[in-house]
């Protein structure tokens, strides 16, 4: 959240949101940030969706792409980025107060999906009086939201640019998320999700983050950055404390994460990711995109083994099969999944040039 973060509460009273699970949720608050101004024609609005651990401060986590004169130019476009439903950065999630009990929801919060996030964003779109998105974009889980937007609201999306995403989360990434969730729920401090007011499952969450972080890197980037180098020593310690630099780095990432993220949100958001499967939901990938009128820019990273180029290509191939307007770009970067957050000229150029032609 930033100083200028705004809040919108909808789905109040009887107008609750029917979730994909069938459960009802309301009211729903969404924290969101905006940049630029909506023009008179109201045709310059761009929705940016964040990844698992992101927030509404898109210019903060995607400074290589969003800003004045950047690919998504804050001087040209009206950019909206909401914190995802289920998150812990201002939007309604498991750490929010349940109006029925006046206590935090904890694990009484209903399980949500990527489509539920999108439905909530649809209400925000109305609130901001945006008739159509010029583009919906985002990386990783943000890219999944972008694809779901096109599937759910084909008439409201002029162009869609998923980056390092997938239309069907692979069993391998489900596996890593499952390990992360297990680390959290088996932490003695988890207390079945009702840990607010006490320390909470910090060890479990830190471990989950360590596992997640490995999946965001690549073999080569770990090699380049750390190799087998030892941490502040020249010889093995012959104990179970930190020996290697990579160990120390992951431990640091894990510890840093618990200060800024809620363990329950981690459970809910990774579950939403695990459930994300357009072919299952719509019958086939083609059916998901059939009614879309959007132009697509699908971007994959060569070394991304979490959401691989092959998975992006499955989306692209479906769109090609449907004769839709799709451009596929494969960014050659050795930083793995995280490459989308790192300065890369090909990535930002592709988005900028694509947007100029939408």
């Amino acid at each position: 959240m930033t100083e200028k973060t705004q809040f919108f509460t909808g789905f109040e009273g009887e107008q609750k949101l029917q979730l994909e699970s069938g459960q009802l949720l309301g009211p729903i608050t969404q924290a969101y940030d905006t940049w630029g101004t909506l023009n008179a024609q109201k045709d310059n609005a761009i929705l940016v969706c964040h990844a698992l651990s992101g927030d509404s401060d898109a210019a903060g986590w995607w400074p290589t792409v969003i800003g004045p004169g950047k690919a998504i130019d804050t001087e040209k476009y009206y950019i909206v980025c909401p914190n995802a439903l289920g998150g812990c950065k201002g939007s309604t999630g498991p750490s929010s107060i349940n109006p029925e009990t006046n206590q935090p929801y904890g694990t009484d919060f209903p399980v949500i999906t990527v489509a539920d996030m999108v439905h909530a964003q649809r209400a925000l779109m109305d609130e901001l009086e945006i008739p159509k998105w010029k583009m919906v974009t985002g990386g990783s889980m943000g890219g999944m939201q972008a694809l779901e937007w096109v599937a759910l609201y084909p008439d409201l999306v002029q162009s869609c640019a998923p980056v390092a995403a997938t239309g069907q989360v692979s069993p391998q990434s489900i596996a890593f998320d499952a390990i992360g969730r297990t680390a959290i729920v088996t932490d003695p401090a988890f207390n079945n999700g009702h840990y607010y007011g006490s320390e909470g499952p910090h060890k479990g969450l830190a471990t989950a983050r360590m596992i997640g972080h490995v999946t965001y890197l690549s073999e080569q980037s770990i090699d380049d950055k750390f190799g087998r180098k030892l941490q502040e020593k020249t010889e093995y310690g012959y104990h179970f404390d930190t020996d290697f630099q990579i160990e120390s780095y992951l431990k640091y990432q894990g510890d840093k994460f618990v200060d800024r993220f809620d363990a329950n949100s981690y459970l809910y958001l990774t579950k939403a990711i695990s459930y994300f499967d357009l072919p299952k939901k719509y019958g086939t990938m083609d059916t998901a995109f059939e009614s879309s009128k959007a132009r697509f820019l699908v971007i994959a990273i060569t070394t991304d083994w979490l959401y691989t180029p092959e998975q992006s290509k499955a989306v692209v191939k479906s769109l090609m099969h449907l004769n839709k307007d799709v451009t596929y770009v494969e960014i050659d970067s050795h930083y793995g999944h995280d490459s989308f957050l790192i300065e890369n000229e090909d990535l930002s150029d592709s988005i900028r040039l694509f947007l100029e032609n939408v």
Partner: protein
Amino acid sequence: MSQHIRPFLKRISELTPDNSRVLDLGCGKGELLKTLRDRRSINGYGVDIDVKNVKECIRNGISVYQGNIVEALTEFQDQVFDTVILSHTLQEIYEPKKVLNEMLRVGKKAIVTFPNFGHWRIRLNLVLSGHSPRTKTLPYEWHNTPNIRVITIKDFRRLCKESGIFIEIEEPYFRSKWIRTILPKWTYNLFSTKGLFVLKK
């Protein structure tokens, strides 16, 4: 614009109906598709493996698939394009027969151009110097050329015949412009530096 596209452009443009849907394999910076779009209002789609080219296509407003030609071709349904173009790329392709058949599966018509290795100067060069052919149109050394296929006009005709592909138009290229010639066809392979074929199934 790449030097090999320019002489073909006018002719390809003439051969492309207005408002048709065109696929360009090995589209480079998308110049051909852009020109066809501006002149003929075509709806174009490109395939190229080089990200620098792909970015130029995006700049030109041309939708493009970054990757392998065969991989891209197999994703399209039958006959979704009016014209599929393979301009000066055939000599770089591993599976030319498969590509030609796929082109005519996804497209109603294929336009193929390639440098003719049967040209008399290339033949003479090989005989006299003993070196692998190098000319203005084929400037590479044998060890660094992307041109893995040595094609002559005569060979290409035979490949089409074997593959059951009908040659609708065949045009030779003399002295920097296409001319309809009264010369017999056997002379094309000797005197033409490039071949242009319009194919159907």
